[in-house]
C-alpha cells in the first residue's frame, strides 16, 4: 500500500489515535478514584481547618471529619459538633481581582462569633492579594465577634494581624485593599447564610 494513498492515511491515523488515546483513557480511569479522594480531602481538610480542628495525617483528618462534621443537606456547607457546641460552615464564592475566590467560613450556629476561615480557591496576585492565604491573616478571624453586618477588614490597620477578637475588625493585607474588600464581602455574605441556616427557628 502506498504511504500517501487515502486508505493508508486513514488507517494509520485511526490506529495511531487508538494506540495513544486508549492508554490515556486507562490511566485516567485508573487514577479517577485517587483524584476524587484528593478533591474530597481538599474540601474536608479545609472545613476542619475552618472549624479550628487540628489534624496530623490525611487519614486522621478523614476520621475526625467523619466523627465531627456532617454535610449540610444542600451541599452548601458543613455542620459540626465540637466540645458540645454546634458550628456551621458554608462554602462561599465571590468575585476577586483576577478570578473568583472560594472560601469556607465557619461560625457558631447563631452567627455571633466567627470560628475561622479557609481559602479553597483564589487567583489573587501572588505576594500581594495572594497573601490572604497566609496563616497570620486567617488566624485573625478565629473567634472574632460579628456585628449586625458581620466584620470589617480594616485597610488602616497595621497589616500584621489584629489580636483583639472582640472589636469586629481584622487587618487587611498591605497593598491589597481590593482583595481584602472582596474577602470581607465573601465573609459577610457567608455569615448571613450561616445566620439563615442556624439562627432562631
Amino acid at each position, binding site marked *: 500500500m502506498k504511504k*500517501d494513498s487515502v486508505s493508508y*492515511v486513514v488507517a494509520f491515523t485511526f490506529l495511531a489515535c487508538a494506540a495513544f488515546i486508549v492508554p*490515556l483513557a486507562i490511566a485516567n480511569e485508573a487514577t479517577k478514584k485517587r483524584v476524587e479522594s484528593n478533591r474530597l480531602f481538599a474540601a474536608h481538610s479545609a472545613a476542619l481547618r475552618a472549624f479550628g480542628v487540628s489534624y496530623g495525617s490525611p487519614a486522621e483528618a478523614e476520621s475526625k471529619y467523619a466523627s465531627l462534621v456532617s454535610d449540610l443537606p444542600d451541599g452548601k456547607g458543613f455542620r459540626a459538633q465540637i466540645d458540645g457546641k454546634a458550628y456551621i460552615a458554608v462554602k462561599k464564592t465571590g468575585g476577586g481581582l483576577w478570578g473568583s475566590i472560594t472560601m469556607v467560613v465557619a461560625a457558631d450556629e447563631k452567627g455571633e462569633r466567627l470560628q475561622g476561615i479557609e481559602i479553597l480557591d483564589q487567583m489573587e496576585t*501572588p505576594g*500581594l492579594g495572594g497573601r490572604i492565604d497566609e496563616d497570620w491573616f486567617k488566624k485573625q478571624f478565629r473567634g472574632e465577634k460579628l456585628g449586625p453586618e458581620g466584620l470589617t477588614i480594616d485597610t488602616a490597620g497595621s497589616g500584621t494581624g489584629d489580636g483583639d477578637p472582640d472589636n469586629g475588625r481584622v487587618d487587611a493585607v498591605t497593598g491589597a485593599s481590593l482583595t481584602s474588600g472582596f474577602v470581607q464581602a465573601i465573609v459577610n455574605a457567608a455569615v448571613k447564610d450561616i445566620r439563615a441556616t442556624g439562627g432562631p427557628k
Partner: protein
Amino acid sequence: MKPSNAKIIKDGLWTNNPIFVQVLGICSTLAVTNNVRNTLIMIAGVTFATAFGSFTLSGIKGLLPRKVRMIIQVLVLSFYVILVDIVLRAYAPAISKQLGPYVGLIITNCILMGRAEAFAAANPPWASFIDGIANGLGYGVVLLAIAVVREFLGFGTLLGFRLAGDWFTPWTIMIMAPSAFFLVAMALWGSNSYNARAEARRKAAVAKAAPDRAAK
C-alpha cells in the same frame, strides 16, 4: 551526517539553546517563573514530553504519511503532556492545583513541536531522545535562572525558604508577568553579546594566523 551525542547535548544547552538561539517557549517563562518550585516542575514536564515525544516520533517516522504528519506529532506530544497532567493530579494535587492550566499548556510550548520537526523527523530515536533532554535542560537552565531572580526579589524567598530579613521590601513587579519579559530580554542580550564577541575574537585569530588572506 550523524551528529555525536556530545554535540547534541552542547547544541541543546548552549549553541542552539531553545530560548537564546531558537527563541522558543518564551510564553511559559512568563507564567511559571515567579516561583522556583513551579519552575522545576514545568522544566521536568517539558523535558519529559520533549524527550519521549521526539523518541516516539522518530521511531514511527518511517510509517508516517506526510499528509497527517503534524496531526500525528500533536497527538503524540499531547499524549505525553496529558500523562504528566494525570500523574500530577493523582499524586501531587497541591502542585497540580497551583500550576492549574499550565501543565496542559505544555503542548503549546513551541520547543516540543520545534524539536519534533527540526530534529526527530530526520534522526534516529535514541539521538532524538538525547536531543529532547538537552533542549529541555537548555530551556530549564534559563528558566531556572529567571525564576531564582524573580522569586528572590519578588518574595525574598527561594523554594519557599525565607532568605531576606524583615528589612527587605519585595519587588512586586518581579512577581508579575512583565518582569519575566525584562529578564528574558536581558538574558538574550547577554548571551547574544557574548556570542558576538566570541565570534569577533575567532575572526581576529583567523586574520592573525593568515594575515595576507585576511588582507585580500
